[in-house]
């Protein structure tokens, strides 16, 4: 059977002719080149995806709170002015900046969104009280805690001591918890005068500068000595502090508040050893000096200052800067602009814990641009694991597409 079938098949097959196609070899070689190009492109795609995912995986996690959008928040790169209604529920969460607008209204900047809110604070001084105290005031009216979760201020009110003589008097301090929105009254230390400046220590206590003896009519020529107190906001216990102004976490050096608006070429400091060194301002930035008000200590030796620089300075007007304290060797000194612009205000308070640690790199991001963060999130903004998964899926899709293309063309 098989012999017969084979013969029949052979006879059948012999009806087929064959004429060689001279282009077969060239077509085969072209297909080979296409395949190589496609394979190369696939390899490049895979390497790019893997390298991108790897770069993301090993990307530094940021240099601190301000570098990224983080839960704790960040210092905004631009402090906006409030444009919404006055907020009465004070449970707004951590704030990055607190200031009093020129019209006397207190403003808090949300640490996580950068949005500025005009707020209604209980017993906050009226604009008239603020104006009356303007000449003697040395620091901002609002003191934002280093973590931005609490804000303190004096409940200064006015009263008519004698007919026609209205004076300011402070009976309590208030501390508002921005997580709960609740506020507490805090007892004043001895010498119950209105504080010249108020701030927070790194230990979570309120620090105030006050006149060293009671006075009802202080003047530029009759200024009592300045002393400093710290008050526990929970217990109300107060104790005198050896240094005035903002004392560094190590308690060895402090930056006193300026007593007037005279520009200086060197920022004065106080130390426990009474050496009281100065920290010279960079001449090239401030050829005519500047008015420098301490804002807070970002770390043991890094001070945040509000600088009001005259025309002709590198940055004119009010801005924030970081400077190394003079108790460090001069070789370690640094001076960096933190915020180039500040809103018109009666002094700024900052949640200094949100200032990132400096690691010496000039490109380090100190503040966060919340306007950019409002844009649709970039792929890098999603969870890294999800991104890697998507990248692998994309690589597989690319390979499948190239394989399909390869088979279609070959």
């Amino acid at each position, binding site marked *: 059977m098989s012999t017969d079938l084979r013969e029949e098949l052979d006879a059948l097959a012999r009806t*087929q002719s*064959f004429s060689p196609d001279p282009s077969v*070899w060239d077509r085969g070689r072209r297909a080979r080149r296409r395949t190589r190009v496609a394979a190369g492109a696939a390899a490049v795609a895979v390497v790019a995806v893997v390298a991108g995912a790897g770069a993301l995986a090993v990307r530094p996690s940021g240099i601190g709170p301000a570098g990224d959008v983080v839960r704790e928040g960040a210092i905004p790169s631009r402090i906006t002015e409030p444009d919404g209604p006055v907020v009465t529920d004070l449970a707004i969460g951590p704030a990055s900046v607190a200031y009093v607008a020129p019209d006397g209204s207190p403003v808090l900047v949300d640490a996580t969104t950068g949005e500025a809110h005009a707020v209604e604070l209980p017993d906050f001084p009226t604009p008239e009280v603020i104006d009356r105290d303007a000449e003697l005031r040395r620091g901002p009216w609002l003191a934002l805690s280093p973590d931005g979760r609490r804000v303190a201020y004096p409940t200064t009110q006015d009263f008519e001591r004698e007919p026609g003589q209205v004076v300011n008097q402070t009976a309590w301090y208030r501390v508002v918890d921005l997580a709960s929105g609740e506020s507490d009254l805090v007892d004043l230390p001895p010498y119950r005068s209105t504080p010249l400046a108020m701030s927070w220590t790194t230990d979570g206590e309120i620090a105030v500068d006050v006149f060293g003896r009671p006075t009802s009519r202080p003047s530029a020529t009759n200024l009592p000595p300045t002393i400093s107190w710290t008050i526990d906001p929970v217990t109300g216990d107060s104790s005198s502090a050896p240094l005035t102004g903002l004392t560094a976490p190590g308690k060895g050096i402090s930056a006193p508040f300026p007593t007037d608006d005279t520009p200086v070429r060197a920022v004065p400091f106080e130390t426990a050893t009474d050496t009281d060194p100065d920290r010279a301002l960079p001449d090239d930035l401030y050829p005519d000096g500047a008015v420098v008000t301490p804002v807070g200590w970002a770390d043991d030796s890094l001070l945040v200052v509000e600088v009001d620089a005259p025309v002709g300075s590198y940055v004119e007007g009010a801005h924030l800067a970081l400077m190394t304290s003079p108790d460090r060797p001069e070789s370690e000194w640094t001076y960096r602009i933190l915020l180039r612009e500040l809103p018109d205000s009666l002094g700024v308070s900052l949640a200094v814990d949100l200032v990132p640690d400096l690691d010496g790199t000039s490109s380090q991001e100190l503040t966060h641009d919340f306007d950019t963060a409002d844009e649709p999130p970039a792929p890098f903004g999603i969870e890294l694991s999800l991104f890697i998964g998507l990248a692998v899926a994309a690589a597989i899709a690319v390979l499948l597409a190239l394989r399909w293309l390869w088979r279609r063309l070959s």
Partner: protein
Amino acid sequence: MTDRSGFDGFVHARGSALARTAYLLTGDHHLAEDLVQAALVQAAKHWERIHTSPEAYVRRAMYHQNISWWRRRKLAESPLESYDAPVPAADPTLRLTLEQALRRLTPRQRTVLVLRYFEDLTEVQTAAALGISGGAVKSMTRQALQRLRVLAPELADLVGADA
């Protein structure tokens, strides 16, 4: 240039034989020509990597390419009515010839028959060439012969009696 001349020599020497096999596989002269050319293009593409027998490579490419083409075509083709029904024996002019009967086999069945009875491959060699098991070769061979008997009873002498 050596590759090119070697390839041309191979095509010149074996092209006709390959074309004959291609015709048996496809049952169509034009398709057979296309099948050979497609397999030769594949051979040219991988010529440097063919270290053993170019002919074995091209034949294998034809077997698989033909089945692949059939899969693409079968959805577009109209189904045959009474596909397995034999032409009435009373009309000898319509009797199916071997050629026509082969066309009514599936490509796999036709390929197995060609390999077994035209190429004279063993079941093991056929299985290796098609990448299937020996049992599958045996089964498909039996089915193919059975179908030929149904389609063209007059070919019984050629394909053997029904078991």
